[in-house]
């Protein structure tokens, strides 16, 4: 049973990671920095509980806020570039964060034991859950409450003006600018929100595994983060959730019985999904966009196909 709870925990933190990329992707920005924000959240939250003895809830909120602040600071310069340049700029930022933690050693003594990040050794003994008597299912429920809150917040945001603004920028920057939207504010706002969510996810992740090290937060994790919303589709937050369940649940865990063939099938199924549903499993619907922007006659998929070569 613990195995399934553990699996549910992985789904939970990866959903948060995917949602952080989803918010940024709504504005049309492909960010590979989410693994970096996730790492910042993980180390910050770990420091808060293991080094300073905080409760888990303020610890992950602080982790989210720190990540959000750094995302905001990075967002201003990074969002001057677009497309492939942004992919590589954010990739560079993510790797800088990883290398920073690779070199970071800062330990404090608590109860005769040293706690804190120790360079390449990583950050050990983030034992808030076991020390405070949380059982596996407590932790799992806690994670999914956080996921549910974040998903509800994003779902609600999608139905307000903020969601329409994000999508407007994502679909056509020139049009969005011409109706008076401030591109910089929108993009940096999305980046900050994404940073907050990634920080929350990272903070929780650090506590579920109790030992984090820099290698986890590399390019691979960053690519997974951006792959979730692409695979799931930008229609709603449920696309990202579905993609996490599909990749982590079905492709990685569900196909274990396939043994060596699993990795081949993993690639094949994602390729198949992207070929059949290029806009993601749940597709892209932005139902409120037309009415808010008064785009006139509704043309299915027209917002996407305009960019065709």
């Amino acid at each position, binding site marked *: 049973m613990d195995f399934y709870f553990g699996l549910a925990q992985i789904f939970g933190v990866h959903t948060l990671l995917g949602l952080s990329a989803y918010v940024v*992707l709504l504005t049309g920005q*492909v960010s590979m920095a989410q693994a970096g924000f996730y790492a910042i959240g993980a180390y910050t939250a770990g420091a808060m509980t293991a080094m300073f003895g905080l409760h888990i809830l303020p610890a992950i909120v602080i982790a989210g806020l720190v990540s959000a602040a750094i995302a905001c600071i990075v967002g201003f*310069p*990074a969002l*001057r*570039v*677009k*497309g*492939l*340049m942004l*992919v*590589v*700029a954010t*990739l*560079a*930022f993510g*790797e*800088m964060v990883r*290398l*920073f933690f*690779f*070199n970071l050693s800062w330990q404090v003594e608590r109860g005769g034991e040293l706690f804190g990040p120790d360079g390449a050794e990583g950050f050990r003994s983030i034992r808030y859950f076991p020390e405070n008597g949380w059982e596996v299912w407590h932790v799992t429920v806690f994670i999914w409450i956080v996921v549910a809150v974040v998903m509800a917040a994003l779902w609600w945001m999608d139905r307000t003006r903020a969601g329409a603004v994000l999508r407007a920028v994502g679909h056509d920057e020139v049009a969005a600018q011409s109706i008076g939207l401030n591109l910089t504010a929108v993009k940096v706002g999305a980046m900050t929100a994404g940073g907050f969510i990634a920080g929350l996810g990272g903070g929780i992740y650090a506590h579920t595994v109790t030992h984090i090290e820099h290698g986890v937060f590399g*390019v*691979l994790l960053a*690519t997974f983060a*951006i*792959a979730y919303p*692409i*695979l799931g589709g930008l229609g709603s937050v449920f696309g990202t959730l579905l993609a996490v369940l599909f990749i982590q649940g079905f492709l990685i865990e569900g196909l274990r019985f396939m043994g*060596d063939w699993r*990795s*081949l099938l*993993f*690639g*094949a*199924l*994602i*390729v198949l999904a*992207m*070929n059949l549903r*290029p*806009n*993601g499993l749940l597709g892209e619907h932005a139902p409120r966009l037309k009415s808010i922007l008064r785009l006139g006659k509704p043309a299915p998929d027209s917002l*996407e*196909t305009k*960019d*065709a*070569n």
Partner: protein
Amino acid sequence: MIDVVQNTLDGLAIGSAYGLLALGFTLIFGVMRRLNMAFGSSILVGIFAGAWLHGQWAAGMIPIFAATLAGAVLAAAYVERLSFAWIRGDAALASMASSFALWMQLEDGIARAFPQRSYAFPSFDILPLLELGPLLLRPEFIAMFLTAAVLVVALHLMLTRTVFGLQVRTLSESREAARVSGVNVGRVAFLTFCIAAAIGGVAGFLIAATDGQISTKLGLWITMKGLIAMVISGLGSLRGALIGGLVLGLVEAQAQWYLGASGREITVFALLFVALILLPQGLAGRADAAARNEALRRL
């Protein structure tokens, strides 16, 4: 002072290999306008095909070179069909996610077929070490530099002097215009993809032969180096790609000498980040900025 000159020479040599990787990336990006995350892993397939031939029959350099090239091109053709040709033209993100899946697939496949940590790759030990006064020149480095120069010239001639080259340039300018003027878009894109993989395969072969051993980590490494070198020079020009590779090699060699391995990585990424933000157009090839901006908008 001698150190600086020696580092410069070493940096330029490895930088020319980076330049070749960037050339491959630039060609793909030029005709596809999409990011190929599986570039490094298709070259990895080629390198391991060469290593397999080496381990199995102790083949000579030329069959190993041919196997590396063939493996890289075959893997790239596979990636092109699945992630680029068959996905609708406007779904750039779908191609990115799909090529990511193929990256994982190819790399996992290689890791299963070759379970050891690292494998031997033949090196050019027949050639002598050159000494120019206090400076040392490794023969592999000279081979790298010359190969890169020859390939760039050949590629330039192909792009400017042949009908196929004209078609490639038309395609990179505008897919629509190419189709209207009767270019077989699918075929040209496919062939360009294969040429890019072959160039990458040459670079991969040179890098593997210099190191003398290979591991499955090389795939991601190749993708990163190629991507970085392509981007610091600005997109869309061959000359720029080569300059980007040389700059990257130079910076890496100097930083490695003065700051050590982890200092080198941080320096490279920090410089990259700053350079991208200060010079979003890249170091070279500013002439066709308009076309490039168009390209950037489409990714």
